[in-house]
């Protein structure tokens, strides 16, 4: 007897719940967009500035560190603890960059810290500095990248399926990306290049489940042509039939994402978190959002055609 999470033959009328799904998704999207207006926590990739990852070999108070660095007049300073508890690691971000090549921000900070905390009491593990010009450029390119990916996918699906499917899939992707970005923002995660990488991966990956469902709808539209007339019902059957693989494929990917989240280290953690949220939201949207949107687009265009004729 094989192990089965979902009993074969079960048909759940997912599309009957579409109003709840719209309400739920709509709320999440509105919350996300509101959170964007309350301010994005832009990483230095996009905002410009210098970020130093400093590790002390003894206990250092964050207030002491802040005072020392604020006295250097390097613009806005933000300091946060980084890594495990008691690691004495800090992420220090300042507004200034060292474009002049003469004396880098890390040298200035390093000298001040040596004076205050003693020589060899700390190590600068990583320094990243991005000029404001490059920051603006990367911001533009990041948005472009996501748009291009969506357009590419829209075209591919339109070629392989009907156009209404492409609309449903891409809107569902926009839904996934917006909510993932919103949740990351509400969790005060930084928005940086790696976030864009995660969002693009979600764009690519969360579509897999949607395509499995669409594929089955396409197949059932042919197979059940005589028995079931209602597109919504065909969708219900198709989603139910593919439900176990939708859940299982996401589950295996979630397993490795959780491994990354827990074990991958501080640098990769935010990336893994974005993937985690994105995969969960993406799985939900391939079941509850994508198909209803196809149906809505389908009936909308049908109505318009009728109107056009009369």
């Amino acid at each position: 007897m094989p192990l089965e999470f979902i009993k074969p033959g079960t048909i759940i009328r997912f599309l009957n719940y579409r109003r709840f799904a719209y309400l739920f998704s709509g709320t999440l999207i509105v919350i996300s967009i509101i959170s964007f207006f309350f301010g994005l926590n832009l990483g230095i990739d996009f905002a410009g500035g210098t970020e130093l990852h400093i590790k002390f070999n003894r206990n250092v108070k964050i207030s002491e560190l802040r005072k020392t660095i604020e006295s250097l007049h390097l613009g806005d300073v933000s300091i946060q603890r980084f890594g495990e508890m008691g690691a004495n690691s800090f992420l220090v971000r300042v507004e200034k960059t060292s474009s002049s090549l003469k004396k880098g921000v890390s040298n200035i900070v390093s000298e001040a810290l040596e004076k205050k905390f003693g020589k060899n009491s700390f190590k600068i593990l990583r320094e990243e500095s991005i000029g404001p010009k490059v920051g603006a450029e990367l911001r533009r390119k990041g948005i472009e990248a996501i748009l291009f990916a969506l357009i590419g996918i829209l075209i591919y699906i339109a070629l392989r399926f009907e156009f209404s499917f492409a609309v449903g899939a891409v809107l569902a992707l926009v839904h996934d990306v917006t909510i993932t970005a919103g949740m990351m923002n509400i969790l005060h995660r930084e928005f940086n290049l790696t976030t864009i990488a995660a969002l693009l991966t979600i764009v690519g990956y969360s579509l897999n489940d949607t395509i499995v469902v669409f594929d089955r709808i396409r197949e059932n539209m042919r197979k059940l042509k005589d028995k079931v007339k209602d597109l919504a019902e065909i969708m219900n059957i198709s989603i139910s039939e593919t439900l176990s693989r939708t859940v299982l494929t996401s589950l295996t990917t979630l397993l490795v994402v959780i491994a990354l989240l827990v074990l991958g280290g501080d640098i990769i953690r935010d990336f893994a978190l974005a993937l985690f949220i994105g995969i969960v939201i993406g799985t939900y949207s391939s079941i509850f959002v994508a198909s209803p949107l196809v149906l809505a687009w389908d009936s909308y265009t049908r109505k318009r055609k009728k109107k056009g004729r009369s």
Partner: protein
Amino acid sequence: MKVNPRVQFIILAILLIISFILILPSFSGVPEWWKGLLPDQKINLGLDLKGGMYLVLEVESDKAVETTLENRAQRLKKDIPELQTKILPGLKIAISVPLSKEDELKAKISDVRLKVVDTKIENDKFTLIATLTQREIREIKNMAVEQSLETIRNRIDQFGVAEPSIQRQGEDRIAVQLPGIKNPQQAIDLIGKTARLEFKLVDDENMKKINIQKLVDEAIKENPKAKDDPVLLNRLLKGKIPDDDEVLFERRVDRETGYVTRIPLLLKKTPLLTGDMVSDARVRENYQFNEPYVAIEFTSDGADLFAQITGEYVGKRLAIVLDNTVYSAPVIRERIPGGRAQITGNFTWDEARELAIVLRAGALPAPVKILQKWTVGPSLGEDSIRRGIMATIVGGILVVVFMAIYYGVSGIIADFALILNLIFMLAILAAFQATLTLPGIAGIVLTIGMAVDANIIIFERIREELRAGKTPRAAIDAGYSRAVITILDANVTTLIAAIVLFQFGSGPVKGFAVTLSIGIITSMYTAIFVTRAIQEFILEKRASPQTISI
């Protein structure tokens, strides 16, 4: 789509042998006979894993155009000594002469290849605004970037960094990667020095008449930035010192305390000799003070000129100026033939070494600016690798166990395909000498999760077909052929996203796009073809298969 298991196994065996040959050099040393006979390229580790520095520099190529404008206008000076120039925004130059010289200027302007865009008469002065042709501006800018690239490459080569990468990026940018560098700031100093070496005469006559220190103090009071900006300082001093002169600081270091003092000197603006004529520069030691100096050697033209200059100005002071700082200003005692000179300036050994390198490698045609920089310490990189491997192993085990429990024998077949997929991914990374970054490792981990997706789709389909009453043989046939299209569609879209990411991303993020794309492609082979061949093989071995473990 039928597959013959035996043919498939032979293909698989060949691919595996090739893969092991490709992977081996990355994980252990290869014997001597291997080299030359078999590929020995390794998977590169990105800077984020290996430690090092990444820089994106912008060549301020406008400055090179401005220098050309200035030089050309200055050539008119020997005919029209009253001529004055001023660089205007938008790569233009204003040339002013007394009204009486208007016709002469107009006649001569085309001789120095300047294009007139505007003229005006103001306060008894005729001013002409000139520029260069668009084509020439483009050429000069391009040359400036190419030369900077060459110069920076020379400097880094002489500095001694293992496997540096210096590449042009777009129109006016240069990306520099220095893996494993110990002292990033020193490298930045070296790269960033314009290294314009000039020999200029000290205007001692006027220095006696004018209180330079007082003027400089006043100017700095007016604008504190002038302290470190010689161009600004001289703008503020305009009119107070002779037109042909400029003020630069001499840097003096106290031998005992190391304390640096800066003394303003009045110099003739026009250099008598420049760094272009230096053929060699070496660090030497002054045994008296036990400190280094830089010995330079001129080209033969330079040697002649140097002999002529030193002969002409005996008794005067000759300032040795590097990037607008005077390093020393010795009195010329006699004519110096032979084309050798020394630059002393109380250097440290590192400073002297740097100076010798930049003089040998040549000057930058235009200043460069840092747009982007990151440095990663090697310990952080090692930590990242360790954690990445850990996450890969644990993620892998979770997936493998899950598949075996949920799908039985078929799950184990999928697990086998998963391991093959990892091997193939590493082999392709090695074959292309791709760079593995931290996000790249994340890409590998993610691929583990995604690779079994294809098998889940196939196995679920086979289960469905079995439930519909098909025999195992028919169910496998139907399952694979139906699922392949779905898998293809799903993976193509992920590939689209990965390719966009590769186009857009930089450094580490690019590494993620690379491993993800490779993983998608290799997983399609292992999850579809390899698992099918094994399934068929098992079916063949059994006399009358009524059930399969799936």
